[in-house]
């Protein structure tokens, strides 16, 4: 009788452990999917950032909006420390 009870307990324990593993596996997979989605977002943001760093646009903005001119060699002075 005790052997049968022990077997039944072991079976229940085994099922319990296995279902926990599945639950954790499910959580892990959800996190993997989230990671993929975030990587995709990061990729899009990196692309947008690169597009914003376009030197031609920056130069145009500096010239037209900020009224800046390209520096010439004569304008540069070296300061001796």
């Amino acid at each position: 009788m005790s052997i049968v009870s022990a077997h039944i307990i072991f079976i229940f324990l085994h099922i319990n452990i296995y279902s926990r593993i599945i639950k954790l596996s499910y959580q892990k997979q959800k996190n993997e999917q989230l990671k993929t989605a975030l990587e995709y977002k990061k990729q899009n943001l990196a692309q947008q950032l690169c597009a914003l760093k376009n030197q031609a646009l920056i130069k145009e903005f500096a010239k037209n909006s900020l009224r800046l001119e390209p520096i010439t060699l004569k304008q540069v002075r070296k300061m001796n420390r």
Partner: protein
Amino acid sequence: MISTIQKTRSSIIFLLFCLLYGCIVLNLFFIQIRYHAFYKNLGHKQYNVTVTQAPPRASIYDRSGVTALALNKDTVSAFILPKNLESLQTLKPFLAKHFPQAVERLKNHKNSHFMYIKRRLSDYDIKLITEANIPDIKFLNEPSRFYPIESAAQVIGVTDIDNNGLFGIEMQYNALLAGTPTTYTLERDARSGNFYFQKETKIQGKSGQPVVLTIDHNLQFLITEELKATIDQHHAKEGAALIMDPSSGDIYAMTNLPSFNPNDIEALQNQELTKNKIITEVYELGSVIKVCAALSAIEAGVVTPDELIDCENKITTYFDGRRINTVRQSVAGVIPFKEVVARSNNIGTAKVAKRLGAKIYDYYLKLGFSNKTGIGFPGEQKGFLNNPNNWSKQSIISLSYGYEISASLLQLARAFSIIANDGYSAAPRLVLTPATEMPQKKQLFKKESTDIIKEILIKNKAEENLPYRLMYKTGTANILVNGIYDPNRNIFTCAGIIEKGAYKRVIVVFIREVPKHDVYAATVAAPLLERIAKKLAIHDQIL
């Protein structure tokens, strides 16, 4: 008492049940024993799915390791499942109107499980399909590339529709950037959706490795601007420019114009625009090669810089029975050899080269001509140098001022790097990571010889008071058209060195075919090199 009829009925019913149970046992025998392997495989196929996943393609960076020159971007493709179409009546007219090629393909793929309508859809196509609201048309994300710095397009290259490198660095390092796919076996049932119970890696792949170039994205932009301004000013057909560090071989900037938009490869009409002509095209460069002839003559000891050479005060003369022409601006009488080179006089140069004889061929080989540079870029040309075994009487004369020798601009930069390096060899490179083994530096020419050449080439004007030494040589060469040199079609080259203390850079610029006649490299290419040198000085803070 049970009658005989009742007994018989019971027996029949009993036998019937025995028969039924017998059928069940037989069926079980067939399923579990006879066809055990078949059903086991069927179950396996249903529960076990093999998935092959490619890693994301790695990025390409400039020398900072931070600024991306090529990065990943998803594109959208449209597809249908021809075997499971629900609204063929709406689908066909829509495809016929907007995607006629898809209609043709659908005729040949009626029984296919999957068919693309179009890959890499534009925003307009996506909007069109979305608004059409046809349930049979579905979208799919596919990996593609985005290139933020368009001026580096010919260097970086592009990928094809399957994201494999087509040319340039994308092709050269395709295997490294792409990595290798990983194959998994997933165990799941019909109701688990995207989730699995177990995952087993069958083949472990490798993630893509990023490539870091020697290119400086700021310098790339600056010299592209200057090159474009020069091309526009002279209405030239094309141009190129490159900046190289002679000591390390690092190429800081490399640009060709006209260029193309690597982010819209479908709009590309002329594939010529995709060529990195600095490496993949060779030209007869003309007078800029006189520097090499002069270096060879000084190294061989057949001339000294102060030795007086008779340039005959003519535009045309005959030497060894061969006609030599020189441009009007370079006509001179008896002048020191250093002046012959500075003035770019063909007559004086040819006379000195004649003293070298066939040795000039060996010196040119030493300077790297007729040999690939080792940069490994796809499509690199090694050029041509006429072997003395094939020489005519004209050859030594032609070779002295840049004909019968064709070279790429990169080879020219390498030759000038040897001069900048005090005679030590130079190996150009475009890639910092992955690191490649650089050849050991060898002294090819004496420092004294290269110092003399540098003194001859100095162009610093007192009034400009430049904070660096600027040395350069120009070259104007006729283009060979149908076997005849066309005086109205020229290439204008200028190669030079900018130096201050230990800081050295080699600059090579090239302009091809301007509509105006009677122009020379001194007015077309030299000003471009001088402006690039100034921008380089400000950028690198050599003041």
